[in-house]
């Protein structure tokens, strides 16, 4: 089982947020304002959307087994990838880490009893559900075939599918994201426990601070944009319809003003997760704390300046293209800083192979490939060729599935003991990580080659010379699906049968590990006071580890 030297036979605490009831069973969940319970509500709902998106992805891959298309009609295929993209991006990946782990952990990590606005937090979940409801309604009544990017005038005039409810759904869902971001920023500003200075904040909190910036500054723009597109569709207005004088390129500007920064909503939290896992399992302070923290903010800010790199061949002006390409390269630097610092943290560490670590290292590998291929796309001359080919598809799956989803699953493994109080089978979960890694590469690496060979994306049929690579990719996808099924099953199994974890099974340094697992409703028995530096294992006798070779920082009090 897991590496639990100091916690022999444990039992769950008598009282914790899961068994505390205020009122009767189901109501105590649906009306809860406890950030931990809301996090679990989100966990359940994003999992549903991940399933939907995953099943659609599987159908896409099966369809592409033969050049002519093996499964569905062209209309249906177009709906498959659109709904796959919409479900995965707006309803799974964007809320995933922030709304689940962010909600659960930020108050714990900064020593607060709850988020600043608990009721708004619950409200944001309901908004998510309503938005999700609209989108599912659209999926089930005619589907949606515009691509997740909703380019006009296809979406606003020509498409025959259920665009309107989908657009309304995403519009509504945007407010859930805005409220989450608002809550995080205010919480981090005003709710920190005594001694929790800005530079003692866990990097996870920094990452979420940066993410929240993007959420509150970007999301309103996509909301209004989709609203305009929806109005255009419903009332035949002409904001983006050239037949009436509107400009379709304007839509793209507005859309990407949000949707490029949105990719950092997806990756920054995952980076935050990895920044927690790596020092914990290397048992040493993270290398370059302030640079990692700063780079999160830098990514969030510079990330707003690069959006038109999705539009290099729309006919945008050459000067604009040059500017946006240049800035896209700048935004790569803070990501590089993070990767190098993570790697250096391993140096002279005491590294274990616990499952979260395996996922985190898998994240680094796949994120690096995904990020580096972003450099190919940001290169003006090259993007003329690979824009809108499978190269792009491979790029973003490497970052979003290989990076963000891997980080998410890694986070699940890391905090599962905190959330449920129990551990899961160790070797099985390491095995699952390997399966995911292998299956993932087999699925998406061939797509880089396909893209460079010139296979455009969103094609339900393709010239036969592309078949070999497509078959490889589909084969990989089936391994990948297995890779996701495994954790899902053993995590669920462990909720009941897993070994009891104790407050700090790994052990880790964060405040969240200084309370029971699962925590009390109020999080802490007494408001904690922070007297140690982040990720400091040397001066934390409470962790029960052998003191380091030499104490480096001046010893901080007792605790």
């Amino acid at each position, binding site marked *: 089982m897991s590496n639990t030297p100091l916690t022999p036979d444990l039992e769950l605490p008598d009282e914790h947020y899961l068994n505390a009831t205020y009122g009767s069973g189901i109501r105590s969940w649906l009306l809860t304002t406890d950030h931990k319970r809301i996090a679990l509500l989100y966990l359940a709902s994003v999992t549903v959307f991940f399933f939907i998106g995953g099943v659609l992805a599987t159908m896409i891959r099966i369809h592409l087994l033969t050049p002519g298309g093996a499964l569905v009609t062209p209309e249906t295929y177009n709906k498959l990838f659109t709904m796959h993209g919409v479900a995965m991006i707006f309803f799974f990946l964007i809320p995933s880490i922030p709304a689940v782990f962010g909600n659960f952990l930020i108050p714990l990590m900064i020593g607060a009893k709850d988020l600043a606005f608990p009721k708004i937090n619950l409200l944001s979940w309901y908004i998510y559900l309503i938005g999700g409801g609209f989108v599912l309604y659209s999926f089930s009544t005619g589907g949606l075939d515009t691509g997740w990017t909703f380019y006009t005038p296809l979406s606003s005039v020509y498409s025959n599918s259920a665009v309107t409810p989908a657009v309304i759904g995403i519009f509504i869902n945007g407010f859930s994201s805005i409220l989450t971001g608002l809550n995080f920023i205010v919480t981090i500003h005003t709710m920190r426990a005594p001694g929790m200075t800005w530079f003692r904040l866990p990097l996870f909190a920094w990452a979420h601070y940066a993410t929240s910036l993007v959420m509150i500054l970007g999301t309103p723009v996509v909301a209004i944009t989709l609203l305009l597109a929806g109005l255009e569709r419903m009332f035949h207005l002409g904001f983006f319809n050239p*037949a009436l004088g509107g*400009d379709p390129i304007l839509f793209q500007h507005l859309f990407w003003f949000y949707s490029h920064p949105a990719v950092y909503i997806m990756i920054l939290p995952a980076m935050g997760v990895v920044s927690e896992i790596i020092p914990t399992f290397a048992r040493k302070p993270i290398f370059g704390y302030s640079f990692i923290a700063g780079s999160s903010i830098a990514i969030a800010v510079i990330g*707003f300046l690069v*959006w*038109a790199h999705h539009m290099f061949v729309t006919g945008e*002006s050459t000067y*604009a293209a040059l500017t946006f390409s240049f800035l896209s390269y700048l935004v790569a630097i803070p990501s590089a800083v993070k990767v190098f610092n993570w790697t250096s943290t391993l140096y002279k560490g005491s590294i274990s192979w616990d499952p979260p670590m395996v996922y985190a290292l898998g994240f680094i590998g796949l994120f690096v490939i995904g990020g580096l291929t972003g450099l190919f796309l940001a290169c003006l001359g090259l993007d003329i060729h690979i824009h809108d080919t499978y190269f792009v598809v491979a790029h973003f799956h490497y970052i979003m599935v290989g990076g963000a989803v891997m980080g998410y699953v890694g986070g699940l493994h890391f905090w599962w003991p905190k959330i449920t109080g129990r551990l899961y089978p160790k070797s099985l979960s390491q095995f699952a990580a390997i399966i995911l890694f292998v299956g993932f590469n087999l699925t998406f690496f061939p797509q880089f080659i396909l893209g460079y060979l010139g296979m455009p994306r969103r094609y339900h049929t393709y010239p036969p010379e592309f078949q070999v690579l497509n078959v490889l990719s589909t084969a990989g996808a089936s391994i990948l699906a297995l890779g996701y099924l495994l954790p899902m099953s053993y995590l669920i199994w462990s909720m009941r049968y897993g070994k009891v974890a104790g407050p700090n099974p790994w052990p880790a340094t964060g405040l969240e590990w200084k309370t029971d697992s699962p925590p009390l409703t109020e999080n802490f028995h007494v408001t904690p006071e922070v007297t140690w530096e982040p990720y400091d294992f040397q001066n934390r006798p409470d962790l029960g580890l052998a003191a380091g070779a030499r104490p480096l920082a001046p010893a901080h009090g007792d605790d």
Partner: protein
Amino acid sequence: MSEHIVSPKVYIVIFASLMLGTGLTVWAAFQNFHQYNIVIALGIATIKATLVVLYFMHARYSPGRTQLVIVCSIFWLAIMLALTLADYDTRPHDITLAAPQVFYCV
């Protein structure tokens, strides 16, 4: 956070200036300043908005954090407008918006 109470006198002065500004914009709109009409209109609007933010909304007396929030909102709005308009302004022949009625017949 010691609260700063703005006296009603200040409010009245600000209110008067806002009224003045409103009158001024309407007057200016009827004069022909060529391409500067819009600049003047927006200039006055911005001054009015600034007054509201500083005094009615107490931004002047708020902690630096609040002021930073305000600056950020303006900054991001500026990014969005400036970079997009930069694209439009540097397009070689902008006929993007010359809506064609296409009836292609072979």
